C-alpha cells in the first residue's frame, strides 16, 4: 500500500529492455494468470450457454406441395390432407427478413404449387418460400375449412417473429433478439405468440389483432417481453391463431 518510492524498490522504465528481476517475475506471473483467466472465463461462459432449442432450417427436406394461399391475416398456405394426415396450414416467410404478402395477394384463391425450405421447431413449421407457380391439378376439389373458434383465453408468454423462433436463428427469442424480431415483423414475417401454457396441446400461435387484422406498431413495445394478454383463439387445421386484444396486455417481468 506504500506509495513512497524507496531506493531499494525495483524501478521499471519501459524503454529500457532490462526489467528488474523481481518485477519480471511478478509480471510473468500476472501474464500467466491473465491469459489463463481469459481461457477459463471463455470456457465457463461458452460451455454454459442456454439451449437455443431444436429449431432450424430443414435443408435436406425441401418442401413442395400444392394448395391455396390465404391471408389470415398473414400469408398462410393451406394444403389438403393426404390420407395419412389431415389438412395442414403453414405459416410463410420470404427470404431473409421478408414476408410474402405480394405472392399471397397475387395468387389468392387460385391453386398453386409452393416450393421452399421448412423451418421447423417442434409443432411449429414455417415455410421459407422459394417459388410459387400456378397449378391446374394437385388440389382436386380442396376447399379449406373455416376457422374453428376455441373461445377467449388469457395467455402468458412472449411475442416473437415466427421465423427466428422456428429456428432461422438459434437463439431466436428473448430481449437480446428484440430488435431483430421487430425488423422481421416489420418486414412481413408473421408474429407468433409463444405461450407458457398450451391450448389444445399447442404452445405457439399465429397472431392477429383482436379483429383478425394485421398487427401494427402497437406490438413493438411488447415484443420479446414476458407478457400476459387476452384474446380469442381459433384453429385453422393444425395452426392456432390468437386474436390478441393488446389493450389487455400486461408485462409480467
Amino acid at each position, binding site marked *: *500500500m506504500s*506509495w*513512497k*518510492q*524507496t*531506493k531499494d524498490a525495483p*524501478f*521499471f*522504465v*519501459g*524503454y529500457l*529492455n532490462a*526489467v528488474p528481476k523481481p*518485477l519480471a517475475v*511478478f*509480471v510473468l506471473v*500476472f*501474464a500467466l494468470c*491473465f*491469459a489463463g483467466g*481469459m*481461457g477459463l*472465463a*471463455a*470456457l*465457463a*461462459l*461458452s*460451455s*454454459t*450457454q*442456454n*439451449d*437455443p432449442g431444436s*429449431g*432450424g432450417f430443414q435443408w435436406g427436406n425441401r418442401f413442395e406441395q400444392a394448395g391455396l394461399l390465404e391471408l389470415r391475416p398473414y400469408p398462410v398456405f393451406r394444403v389438403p390432407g393426404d390420407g395419412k394426415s389431415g389438412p395442414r396450414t403453414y405459416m410463410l416467410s420470404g*427470404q*431473409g*427478413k*421478408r414476408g410474402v404478402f405480394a405472392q399471397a395477394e397475387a395468387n389468392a384463391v387460385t391453386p398453386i404449387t409452393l416450393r421452399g425450405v421448412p423451418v421447423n421447431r417442434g409443432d411449429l413449421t414455417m415455410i421459407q418460400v422459394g417459388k410459387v407457380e400456378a397449378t391446374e391439378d394437385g388440389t382436386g376439389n380442396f376447399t379449406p375449412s373455416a376457422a374453428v373458434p376455441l373461445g377467449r383465453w388469457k395467455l402468458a408468454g412472449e411475442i416473437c417473429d415466427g421465423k427466428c423462433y422456428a429456428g432461422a*436463428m*438459434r*437463439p431466436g427469442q*428473448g*430481449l*437480446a*433478439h*428484440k*430488435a*431483430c424480431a421487430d*425488423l422481421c415483423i*416489420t*418486414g412481413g414475417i408473421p408474429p407468433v405468440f409463444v405461450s407458457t401454457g398450451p391450448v389444445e396441446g399447442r404452445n405457439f400461435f399465429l397472431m392477429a389483432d383482436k379483429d383478425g387484422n394485421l398487427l401494427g406498431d402497437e406490438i*413493438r*413495445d411488447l*415484443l*420479446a*417481453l414476458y407478457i400476459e394478454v387476452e384474446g380469442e383463439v381459433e384453429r385453422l387445421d393444425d395452426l392456432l391463431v390468437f386474436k390478441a386484444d393488446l389493450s389487455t396486455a400486461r*408485462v409480467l*417481468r
Partner: protein
Amino acid sequence: MSVQYTPVLWNRNKLVYDAVLLIAVALYLYVFIRYAPAFEDVTKPIDGATLRMRAFGSCAFLMLTVILCIGPLARLDRRFLPLLYNRRHFGVMTAGIAAVHANYVLGWYFNFSPTDKYVALLSSNTSYGQILGFPFEALGIGALLILLVLAATSHDFWLSFLGAPLWKALHMSIYIAYALVVLHVALGALQGPGDPILTSLVTASVVLVCGLHFTTGRMEAARERGEATAKASLEQAGWVIAGEVDEIDEDCAKVVTLDDDERVAIFKYDGKLSAITNACAHQNGPLGEGKVLWGCITCPWHGYQYNLADGRAPEPFTEKISTYRLRLIGSTVLLDPKALPPGTHVEPVKLGVSA
C-alpha cells in the same frame, strides 16, 4: 520519449506486452468459439454468428475491466506499473475487438432485411421509455464510439495537439464507456434466460472496478491528511515545512501536497535536494514516485525524464515542468509553495549546508 511522432516506438517490452495480449485474446476466442461448444448441453448448436458476437463482446468487456483495474492496482502496488506502460495498446486492441463484435451484430441481427442495416440498427427497437426492452444496442453504440475515439487519439501526437488537460479529460470518458457497456450487457444479455456465469462475471467486474477505485481514492485521501504538515506548518515568511531530510531515500522523492492540492516532489540526490511539480508533462504521471536515473528524474509511467535543477527534459526533448525553491534549516526542509514557471533553473540545496 521521442522528438518526432512515429506510429509506435517499438521496444522489447512493448513487443512482449502486445504478444501476451494477443495470446490471451486468441486463447479466449479459440476456447469460446472452437473448444467450449463441445461441452454445451444444447439440443442444437448455437448459430456460429451468435457465438462469435458473444465471444468478441464478452472478450472486449473483460479486457475493458482489466484496463480499468490497472490504474488503481498500480497505485496500490507499484509492481503493477509495467502494465501501465503500454496500456494504450491494450485499449486500442479492446476497441478493435468491440468493433468486431458490433460488426457481427450488424451482419446478423440487422442484415437480410429490405431495410439498410445501419438504419435498422437505429430504428428497429425504439422502446426508449421502458427499462425492460430498452434498446440496449444504443448503449453499445455509445460505448463503441467512445472506445474508437480514445483509440484514435491515444497517440502522443494527440496528447501534444490537444494539450495534457484536455487529452486527459477526453480519456477519462473511458469510465462513461464502461458504464455504458455494463448497462448494455445488463439490459441485453443478462435479460435472457438465467445465465449465472455471465451474471457473476459482470457483477465481479463492477465490484472489482468500483472497489479498486474506491480503495485507491481512500488511500489518496489518507495520504492528503498525512501530509498536513505542509498545510498547517510552522510557516516562515510564506515557506512551508515539507519534512525531514531523512524521510527521503537517495535518488527518490517525498511528495508534498500544498493548500491548493498542488503536489510537489522533493528529490534527494548526490547530496542535494531539488523540488519540481509532481505531474509529468506527458500524461500527468506521478513524478514523485519515480527515481533519479542518469541524473534525471524519471517518470514511473512512461519513463519521461527531466533535469532536477530546471525541470527541463534533456535535449533534444522539449518538455518542461514547474520547479520550486527549497531551504534547509538543520535537517528540516522548507518549501516555497509558489510554483516557478516551467523550466526555471533553481540552484539545488546542498545537504549539510543549512540556511
